[in-house]
C-alpha cells in the first residue's frame, strides 16, 4: 500500500501540534516539528515517486471519507496522483523542505517563531491538497487554503500596518480570481454533472458539444482564476507588495509553489484548453504581456526583493506563454526549474538582507561579494539559471519554450520576438541586480556577523539548502526534461534542438543581455548620470517603476470609489433605514401636531369640550 495520504497528513499534523501548543514549545522542538514534518513528507514523496515509476499504473488513488453528496453532486476527500501531480508534489515537499530548513535559521531571532512554522506547515498541507485533489472542489480547498496562508504570512509582522495592507491586497486580488474559478466550477458541474477532474477531462475529450463556446467560457474563467493566483496581468499587482512577508515565505509561496498553482491548474485542465483555440491564445497573450511588462518593471526597481518578485511574474509569464502555445511539457519543466533557481535567489537575497539590517534597497548595498561569499555564489548560480546561460537548468526550459513558440504558434514571429526581448531584459536586470548588490563600493554599514547567530550564512542551516538548490538549479535541467516531457505524452509539442539561426539567436540573447548589462551598469563606458537626467528616460523609469501604472489604475477605478462610497459619513448609515426613519418621523410629527392641542390649559379643554358638544348636537339636529 502506498502512503499517499501521509504526504499531506504530515504537514497537517505539524500544523495542528504547533497550533494547539500556542507557541509554548521551545524553539528547537518547533524547528524539528516544522521543518521535520515537511522533510518527512519529502522523503515519503521520494518513496511514492519510486513506487510510481516502478509500477505500471499511471495513477495512484487514496480514498477517505465522503465530503458531500447531494443528488448527483458527489465529492469526496480523495487523493489522486499522476505524473503531473507528482512533479508538483516533489517540488512542493522538496523545495519546501529546504526552505523550511533555511527558515529555522532565518527566523531564529524573530517573534512568533512557532506561529511562523504553524502557518508554513498549513501552507504546505494546503498546497499538497491543491495538487493532489481528485476533484475540483478539493483543488479549490487547497487553492483557498494557500491564499489564506499567503495572507497570514505576508502579514506575519502584524505590527506594521503596511504589511497588513499588502496582505489584504494579496488576498482580495486573488479572491477576485478565485471568484472566476468558482464560477468555472459551477459551469463545469452544469456541463459535466460532476466535479471529478478525470470525469471532466473525459467529458471534454469525448462529449463536449460543438461548437464549444461553453468550453471557451469555462477555459477563460479558469484562466481568470489562474491569473489571480499566479499574479499575471491584469491581476498581478499584489505580488510585489506581497514581498512584505519574511523572505522564506517569498521564496516558498511567492516564487516556488503557490504562484505556480495557476500553471498547474491550466496544465491539469489541459483537455478543456486543447479544445479552444481562443482560450489557448488568451493564455499565451496573458503570459506574454505579463512577461513583457514585468521585465521592464524589474529593470528599474531598487528593492532587491521587488526585482525578484517582478522576475517571478515574468518567469510565470513564460510558463503561461508556454502553455498557451502548446508547449505543455516545456511550461511545466520551466515551472520546476524556476522553483529551484528562484527559491535559491530569494534565500540568498534573504541572507543579504539580514546581513544589512533588513535593508532591501540595492543602492545601499554594494561590494558585498567579499563579505558574503556564500550568498554571493548562491546568487550567482541562481542568476545564471535565471538568465538561462547554457547548461543551467533555466537554459533548457526557457530554450524549449522559445523554440516551441517559434515552431508551433500562429503568430510565431510576434510571439517569439517579444519573448526574446523579454529574455534580453531578464539578463539586463539580473546583471543590474548582481552589480548593485555585490560589486562596486559599499554604500552602507553591514550588520556585524556573529558566528553564533543561527542565520549566519556559513551555518549548516544555510549552506545545505543553498548547496542543494544550487545543484538543482544547474543539474535540474539535465535530468528533468525527460521526466516532464513524458507527462503529456503526444499531446504536447516540444521542439528538438537544431542548429539553425533561430536557435542560435535564442541561445545568444542571454549572453548579449549580460554583455550589454555589464557595459550599462558596471563599466564606465556609459555615463549613467546622463541617462538618468534625460527626461524621457526619467519618465519611462517612473512609469516602469510603478509597474506600468496598474496599481494607480485600480486605485483610482476601484479602491478609491469603493472607499469613498463606503466611508463617507453619510453612507455609513443604512440608506434603506431612511425609509423607516421617515415613517418614524411622520409618526412623531403627528404626535407633535396632536399634542399641540394638549396645552394643559383647563379652560381650553373646557372650551373644546363645549365646542365638541355643540358639534355633536348640531350633527344630531341636522342629520
Amino acid at each position, binding site marked *: 500500500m502506498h502512503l499517499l495520504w501521509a504526504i499531506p497528513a504530515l504537514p497537517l499534523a505539524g500544523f495542528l501540534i504547533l497550533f494547539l501548543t500556542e507557541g509554548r514549545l521551545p524553539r528547537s522542538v518547533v524547528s524539528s516539528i516544522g521543518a521535520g514534518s515537511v522533510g518527512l513528507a519529502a522523503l515519503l514523496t521520494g518513496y511514492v515517486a519510486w513506487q510510481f515509476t516502478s509500477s505500471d499504473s499511471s495513477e495512484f488513488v487514496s480514498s477517505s471519507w465522503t465530503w458531500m453528496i447531494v443528488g448527483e453532486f458527489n465529492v469526496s476527500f480523495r487523493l489522486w496522483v499522476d505524473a503531473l501531480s507528482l512533479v508538483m508534489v516533489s517540488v512542493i515537499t522538496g523545495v519546501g523542505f529546504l526552505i523550511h530548513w533555511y527558515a529555522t535559521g532565518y527566523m531564529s531571532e524573530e517573534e512568533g517563531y512557532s506561529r511562523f512554522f504553524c502557518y508554513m506547515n498549513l501552507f504546505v498541507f494546503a498546497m499538497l491538497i491543491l495538487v493532489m485533489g481528485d476533484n475540483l472542489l478539493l483543488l479549490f480547498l487547497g487553492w483557498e487554503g494557500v491564499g489564506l496562508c499567503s495572507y497570514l504570512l505576508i502579514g506575519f509582522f502584524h505590527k506594521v500596518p503596511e504589511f497588513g495592507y499588502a496582505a489584504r491586497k494579496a488576498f482580495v486580488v486573488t479572491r477576485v480570481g478565485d471568484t472566476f474559478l468558482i464560477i468555472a466550477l459551477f459551469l463545469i458541474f452544469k456541463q459535466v454533472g460532476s466535479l471529478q477532474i478525470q470525469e471532466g477531462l473525459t467529458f471534454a475529450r469525448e462529449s463536449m458539444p460543438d461548437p464549444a463556446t461553453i468550453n471557451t467560457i469555462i477555459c477563460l474563467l479558469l484562466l481568470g482564476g489562474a491569473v489571480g493566483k499566479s499574479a499575471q496581468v491584469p491581476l498581478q499587482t499584489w505580488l510585489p507588495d506581497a514581498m512584505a512577508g519574511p523572505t522564506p515565505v517569498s521564496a516558498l509561496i511567492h516564487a516556488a509553489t503557490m504562484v505556480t498553482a495557476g500553471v498547474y491548474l491550466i496544465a491539469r485542465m489541459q483537455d478543456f484548453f486543447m479544445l479552444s483555440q481562443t482560450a489557448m491564445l488568451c493564455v499565451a497573450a496573458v503570459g506574454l504581456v505579463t512577461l513583457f511588462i514585468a521585465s521592464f518593471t524589474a529593470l528599474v526597481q531598487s528593492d532587491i526583493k521587488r526585482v525578484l518578485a517582478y522576475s517571478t511574474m515574468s518567469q510565470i509569464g513564460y510558463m503561461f506563454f508556454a502553455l498557451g502555445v502548446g508547449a505543455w511539457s516545456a511550461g511545466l519543466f520551466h515551472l520546476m526549474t524556476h522553483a529551484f533557481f528562484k527559491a535559491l535567489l530569494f534565500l540568498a537575497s534573504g541572507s543579504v538582507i539580514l546581513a544589512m539590517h533588513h535593508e532591501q534597497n540595492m543602492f545601499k548595498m554594494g561590494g558585498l561579494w567579499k563579505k558574503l561569499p556564500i550568498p554571493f555564489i548562491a546568487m550567482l548560480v541562481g542568476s545564471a539559471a535565471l538568465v538561462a546561460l547554457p547548461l543551467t537548468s533555466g537554459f533548457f526550459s526557457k530554450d524549449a519554450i522559445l523554440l516551441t513558440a517559434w515552431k508551433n504558434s500562429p503568430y510565431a514571429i510576434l510571439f517569439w520576438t517579444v519573448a526574446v526581448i523579454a529574455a534580453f531584459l531578464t539578463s539586463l536586470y539580473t546583471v543590474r541586480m548582481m552589480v548593485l548588490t555585490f560589486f562596486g563600493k559599499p554604500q552602507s554599514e553591514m550588520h556585524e556577523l556573529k558566528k553564533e547567530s543561527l542565520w549566519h550564512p556559513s551555518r549548516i542551516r544555510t549552506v545545505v539548502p543553498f548547496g542543494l538548490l544550487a545543484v538543482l538549479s544547474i543539474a535540474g535541467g539535465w535530468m528533468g526534461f525527460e521526466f516532464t516531457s513524458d507527462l503529456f505524452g503526444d499531446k504536447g509539442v516540444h521542439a528538438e534542438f537544431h542548429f539553425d539561426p533561430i536557435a542560435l539567436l535564442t541561445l545568444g540573447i542571454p549572453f548579449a543581455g549580460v554583455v550589454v548589462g555589464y557595459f550599462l551598469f558596471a563599466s564606465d563606458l556609459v555615463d549613467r548620470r546622463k541617462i538618468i537626467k534625460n527626461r524621457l528616460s526619467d519618465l519611462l523609469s517612473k512609469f516602469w517603476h510603478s509597474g506600468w501604472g496598474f496599481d494607480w489604475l485600480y486605485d483610482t477605478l476601484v479602491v478609491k470609489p469603493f472607499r469613498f462610497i463606503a466611508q463617507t459619513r453619510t453612507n455609513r448609515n443604512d440608506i434603506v433605514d431612511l425609509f423607516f426613519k421617515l415613517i418614524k418621523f411622520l409618526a412623531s410629527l403627528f404626535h407633535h401636531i396632536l399634542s399641540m392641542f394638549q396645552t394643559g390649559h383647563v379652560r381650553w379643554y373646557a372650551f373644546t369640550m363645549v365646542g365638541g358638544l*355643540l358639534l355633536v348636537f348640531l350633527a*344630531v339636529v341636522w342629520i
Partner: protein
Amino acid sequence: MELSLYLFYISAAVAITTAIMAVTRKNASHALIYLVVTLLSIAVIFFLLGAPFAAALEIVIYAGAIVVLFLFVVMMLNLGRSSVARESQWLRPGMWVLPAILSGVLFIVFGYTVLQTENSAMIEGQVVPPKEVGKVLFHEYLLGVELAGVLLLAALVGAFHVGRRYLEERREN
C-alpha cells in the same frame, strides 16, 4: 293649583338669577351664598315636580354638605380683598364674548332640539314617594349603587392621598 304653578316660575326665575350672580361674583363667599339660593330654588322645583326625596337630598347634601365644604376651603385659603381685586382683573369684558356667543349658539341648538321633539306633555306633579324610589333603587339599580359606592370609595382614597402628600411635604419643610 294656581299657586304652585306660580311657585314654579318664581323659583325658576330665582334659580336663573342667582345662578348668574353666583357665576359672576368676584367674592367667593358671596358666590357661594348665591349658589345656595340656586340650589334651594331647585329643591323647591323638585318638590313641585313630585320628587320630595330629591328635594330633601338637594337641600341636605348639596346645600348642606357640598357647599359647606366649598366654604371651608374658601376660608382656609383666606380669599379676602386681594383675591377680589385679582378676580376683577381676571374678569375683563373681552373674555366674555366668545363664551357668551358659544353659550348662545348652544342655547339655540338645545332649545331647537327640545322644541323639535313631538311631545308637549304636561307634568302632573304626581308624587313619587321615597319608599318607591328606594325599592327601585335597591332592585333594578343595585349595580349602579355598588358602582357609586366604589366611586365614592375611590374619591375618599383619592382625597386622602392628595391631602396626605400635602401634609407630608409640609412636615418635611
